[in-house]
């Protein structure tokens, strides 16, 4: 009796599932590649979950690019149509989304998601189907360790190299001013501790003594014990591999401990012109260094137009534009250049073309090695007189680096 009902239920649900699948298959008829058909681009973004803020910044950049090219008639006469799907910050969902874009929606191109942790499995899916994977944010080692030929990262340098400019600058100082001791607190995060590790390697090789190093987990909300250890080791330079929240906490804890080193570099946190002063106190920012890949006043290809269009589309001012939007916009710029250079959006041709030549973007003029690592340099930023300026490399610097760091509150 019950058994019969169950069997019926199973049959019903099975039939329903089949019908749903059939309907879905029907609706996913392959797109005809005609000149009039829109150019479909699949993008998985984290619109909810841990990565949702940067995900939204990237979304703004992508959409701005699409609207800009569509206003001028699109790419190769085809309107750009972005298919954006939420991955809820889950790598399983990100990979599923790219699978859907390629095998169900039959998109022409895919663009990268936000975060290395989502880009790594997604790049593997794109690679399986021979799609180019131009990506704005997957610059961590996990992406490049796969040694995929289809990956192109649209920032000036891989994430681990973000601090190289600062380390090399320290070593270029006259011997008397050069720091002799260093401390390296770093967040256990693929975009943070590798930066500090690499800088430590460079500085140790040049004879800068490491007096303290530690890795702290992302839920470490209390920087006081770490900072008190750093303060008792009293290094000349503190190099933090940080994200924003812990970066703010380190600065606050240092202020509280009344410890001000000669040089202070934090890979993230101080590079947010809008947030940093409000988090640590506007009077405590001066002399702090950070890294960045983009700044609003940059004279990079297309940047003034990008900034202007961005403000027009989303409001705010130049200072409120997140680099994440610029990174995503740069992905679009690469595609625009491809269209005018190779007159094709064929993925095989794109991959071949991008491995040669240089590509102008708001992130700078980019070129990649065989596994998609950009071969440029990130920017060194510093707070001077309450403002954040690029101070190196010289070609883009607005001011010269200023040191030693003044005491807190000065």
């Amino acid at each position, binding site marked *: 009796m019950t058994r019969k009902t169950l069997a019926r239920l199973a049959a019903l649900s099975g039939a329903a599932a089949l019908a*749903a699948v059939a309907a879905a298959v029907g609706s996913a008829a392959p797109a005809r590649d005609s000149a009039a058909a829109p150019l479909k681009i699949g993008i998985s973004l984290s619109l909810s979950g841990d990565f949702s803020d940067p995900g939204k910044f990237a979304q703004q950049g992508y959409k701005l690019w699409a609207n800009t090219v569509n206003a001028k008639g699109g790419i190769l006469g085809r309107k750009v149509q972005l298919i954006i799907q939420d991955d809820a910050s889950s790598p399983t969902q990100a990979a599923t989304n790219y699978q859907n874009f390629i095998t169900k929606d039959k998109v022409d191109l895919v663009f990268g998601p936000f975060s290395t942790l989502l880009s790594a499995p997604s790049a593997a899916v794109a690679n399986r189907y021979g799609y180019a994977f131009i990506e704005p944010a997957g610059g961590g080692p*996990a992406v490049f360790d796969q040694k995929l030929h289809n990956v192109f990262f649209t920032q000036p340098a891989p994430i681990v190299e973000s601090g190289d400019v600062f380390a090399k600058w320290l070593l270029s100082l006259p011997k008397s001013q050069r720091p002799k001791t260093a401390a390296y607190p770093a967040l256990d995060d693929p975009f943070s501790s590798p930066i500090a590790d690499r800088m430590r390697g460079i500085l140790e090789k040049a004879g800068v003594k490491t007096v303290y190093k530690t890795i702290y987990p992302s839920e470490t909300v209390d920087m006081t014990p770490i900072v008190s250890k750093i303060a008792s080791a009293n290094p000349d330079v503190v190099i933090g591999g940080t994200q924003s929240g812990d970066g703010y906490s380190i600065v606050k804890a240092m202020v509280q401990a009344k410890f001000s080193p000669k040089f202070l570099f934090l890979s993230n946190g101080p590079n947010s012109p809008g947030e940093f002063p409000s988090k640590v106190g506007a009077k405590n920012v001066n002399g702090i260094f950070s890294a960045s890949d983009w700044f609003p006043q940059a004279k990079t290809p297309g940047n003034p137009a990008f900034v202007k269009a961005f403000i027009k589309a989303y409001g705010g001012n130049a200072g409120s534009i997140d680099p994440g939007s610029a990174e995503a916009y740069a992905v679009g710029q690469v595609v625009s250049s491809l269209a005018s250079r190779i007159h094709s959006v064929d993925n095989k041709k794109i991959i071949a073309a991008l491995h040669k030549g240089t590509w102008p973007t708001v992130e700078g003029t980019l070129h990649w090695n065989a596994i998609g690592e950009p071969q440029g340099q990130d920017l060194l930023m510093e707070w001077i007189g309450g403002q954040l300026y690029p101070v190196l490399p010289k070609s883009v610097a607005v001011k010269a680096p200023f040191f030693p760091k003044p005491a807190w509150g000065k």
Partner: protein
Amino acid sequence: MSRATAAGLARGAAFAAAAIAFPFVFNAAWIVNIGVLTLMYAALATAWNLFSGYTGYITLGQAAFFGLGAYTLGIVFEHVGIGSGYNPFYALPLVGAGIAIASVPVAWIALRTRHMTFAIVTLTLLFIVQQLAFNLRSLTKGSSGLMLPTPSFPISSYDTPFYLAMLAILLAGLALCWLILRSKLGLMLLAIREDEEKARGLGIRVTGAKLIAWSLMVWLSAMVGGVWAYYLTFIYPESSVDPLVMIGAVLMTFLGGRGTLWGPTIGALVLVPAQQYMITKLGASQLYLVGYSAVFMVVLLLLPRGILPSLRSAIDKQRERRRTHREPIVREEARA
């Protein structure tokens, strides 16, 4: 063979046949991919149900063993080399068994505590495993994540081996549940769920019975984690020990009906495609978590016993009402 046994076997065989045929009939990669995810959750939910549904002890630590399975496979790849293609699948039962055996002492400590404390202790297991994944960098590469070798399957049917592997685990889980429900162990577990003190008083080896169910749960969960890791090729601590994955499996168990054989599978068959559909349709909304928790609430508050038991009792009631009018009551003992 009794009639019930025959019907059960027939139902299982029909399900297995339909499920095996599915990826060959609907062979578009994206459909098979959804199939893989559905079976993954069905297997996880079945495993969760095997322990928590049958003993009444809620474990919140299943994600720990899913993650251990994923990482163990990843580490074995990295340091031992187990080939590519189908070979890693064959290693999985061993990997899962190793994890299950290792988990027994911890479970033994945790099972010294009673229901609520037990649930919380298992939840801390989840955090312990996640922290080990972060901290044992030489093995796990820490927060940067561990890359597994790219599986060497042909692109046209790339997802099918993973589908079949997940299906094999699900069928193993269903078979275990079916056997348990028909064995002395099943009776023991049922007695524990009803009244543990009484069961103990009757001389039932309470802890032993619970530990057997526990290790089967761990074995299945770890294997699912292993297949998932090989499928995705990239794992990191937060994604492989993800409370949301486990909560998803628990939700499906509750939806289908915990303590039943087919409930968890039915829950997964309903929820995973529904979730994928929602993501595609609602695409760019940020309300994913809110919607998730709302569905969860509705299921727990309105349908706490799940689809199968609720349906069954509704049908039984109606039938009984009809029968009382016509014929003398013949109660039938039916359990699916």
